[in-house]
């Protein structure tokens, strides 16, 4: 007879990440998340329109503080995220492997790439002003300087497809937006939200002020139109709006966003073929910026 008592599983309750806290969905509902083969993994909170509204309120409240920090400080905070992610590498590798159905080795490489991407964008925070702004030659005795400023609250529909979408793709859409001083509300990939919800735990322990990044899991068709039509959201990243039609389709969301003149990033023509390990370039970094131009009288 064995005297070894088998230990009970400690299952994790995944929660939303809103305003620096981990609330359950306002609806109290959850949905089943399965792995690539259809096996049950965990229950994720079913974020609703109201959760999206609450997240926008939190994101709006965080704009002043986050956009007001120095670029240098923002870089340090983002680097800290990479450090924290590094410490939980194995957990994320396991979640990515299950979510995307890739092998352990590939999953580990994807997590490493995600960590490197945080570092890469952390380095950009105090350099983006040099490439997006500068001195303008004007016909008069003035210094004329343009500097980029953050757009404000960015609604993001996180990637739902493509190699590495669940974590690397997510990081690739969040990091550039927050690096320049925006705050974000993210609708995580509906089928693979676990790495995103775990990323919330990393952000909460990384000196990122509450409300700068807000992560919601749930039906994209619920959350995305709420963000697109919300009058207090300033820009929209539709990378994960891959539905052919219905409320989650990119065309309809763009139409909603047009009512309030939001800046919009459109999805790739073929999101399923996208490889998130490719070098990101500066497009996303420069997408959510407004230009402020100052005229200053020149001395003699």
């Amino acid at each position, binding site marked *: 007879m064995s005297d070894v008592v088998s230990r009970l599983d400690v299952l994790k309750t995944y929660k939303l990440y809103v305003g620096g806290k981990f609330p359950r969905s306002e609806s109290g509902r959850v949905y089943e998340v399965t792995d690539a083969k259809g096996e049950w993994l965990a229950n994720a909170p079913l974020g609703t329109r109201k959760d999206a509204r609450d997240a*926008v309120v939190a994101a709006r409240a965080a704009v002043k503080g986050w956009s007001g920090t120095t670029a240098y400080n923002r870089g340090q905070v983002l680097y800290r995220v990479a450090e924290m992610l590094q410490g939980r590498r194995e957990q994320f590798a396991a979640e990515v492997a299950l979510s995307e159905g890739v092998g352990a080795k590939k999953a580990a490489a994807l997590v490493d790439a995600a960590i490197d991407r945080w570092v890469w964008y952390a380095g950009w925070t105090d350099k983006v002003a040099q490439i997006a702004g500068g001195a303008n030659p004007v016909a008069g005795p003035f210094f004329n300087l343009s500097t980029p400023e953050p757009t404000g609250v960015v609604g993001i529909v996180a990637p739902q497809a493509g190699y590495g979408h669940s974590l690397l793709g997510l990081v690739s859409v969040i990091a550039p937006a927050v690096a320049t001083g925006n705050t974000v509300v993210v609708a995580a990939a509906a089928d693979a939200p676990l790495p995103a919800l775990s990323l919330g735990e990393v952000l909460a322990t990384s000196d990122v002020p509450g409300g700068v990044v807000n992560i919601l899991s749930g039906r994209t068709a619920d959350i995305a139109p709420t963000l697109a*039509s*919300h*009058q*207090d959201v300033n820009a929209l990243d539709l990378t994960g709006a891959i539905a052919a039609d219905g409320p989650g389709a990119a065309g309809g969301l763009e139409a909603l966003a047009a*009512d309030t003149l939001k800046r919009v990033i459109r999805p790739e023509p073929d999101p399923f073929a996208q490889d998130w390990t490719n070098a990101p370039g500066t497009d996303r970094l420069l997408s959510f910026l407004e230009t402020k131009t100052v005229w200053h009288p020149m001395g003699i």
Partner: protein
Amino acid sequence: MSTLAANAPGVAGSGLEDVAASEASLRRFLHGLPGVDQVGLEARAATLGTRSIKTTAKAYAIDLAISMIDLTTLEGADTVGKVRALCTKGRTPDPTDPTTPRVAAICVYPDMVATAKAALRGTDIQVASVATAFPAGRAALPVKLADTADAVAAGADEIDMVIDRGAFLSGRYLDVYNEIVAVKEACRRPDGSYAHLKVIFETGELQTYDNVRRVSWLAMLAGADFIKTSTGKVAVNATPPVTLLMLEAVRDFRAATGVQVGVKPAGGIKTTKDAMKYLVMVNETLGDDWLSPHWFRFGASSLLNDLLMQRQKLTTGRYSGPDYVTVD
């Protein structure tokens, strides 16, 4: 609205005429009021806060709440321009939607009453003025009465007075009573009519629920037309349990005397959800009789913007943002 005759000090015919005859009789009466069950009160207030109000009921409640607002600016930095802007907002809360109801009143300091009165000419919006050395109430009685008379002379329709908390807490109930009676007299206009008197208790400074019940009865006996929770100037303002307690007091007072008194929670009510909770509380405790701007008011400044944003959400289906309402 209640007339003075029915609401005169002493309240004839109710058996309460002699309550304020002496310090001792007043104390005996107030301390004879039943004690407040704190746990029960807080639980009841919390339960009433869980009601879900949706769709058409919500639309009705939002419009009702807007029409009950005493839109308030009580800052040292108030200017004539700011008061005018606030009055304009009170007249037309949402310029994009003319169906939005007007607020009940504009609440200002006494020196701004004339400005507000002029800006509101031609509307039925009342001008309320705080008085009696608001918010502390620490001034001599003649100063307080002059303050009140000055506001009434400038055209104030309603006077929000503060009680002397120091006197109340040290048990000098008759002083508080006499002061309210004197202020009520100072509300008298030359034509014999009276400005409406709201009595502010500053419940955040009264320490116990028993005190809130006592002071509610004290003010109603002295002839208050409205009882109001707070000045909005201290850490603890209107809370649901305190407001519920005051609602029960006015209910009991009407049962005892036949005189209806209004209630105004003030301070810290910032969201539509908060306002709904108070409306539910009024409806469940007092019923329809009090669900009108004549008998229930919100003392608030930022609440109106949230109500307007919720109203826009109901009409357009889209969440609105602070960019679409005024900055006050």
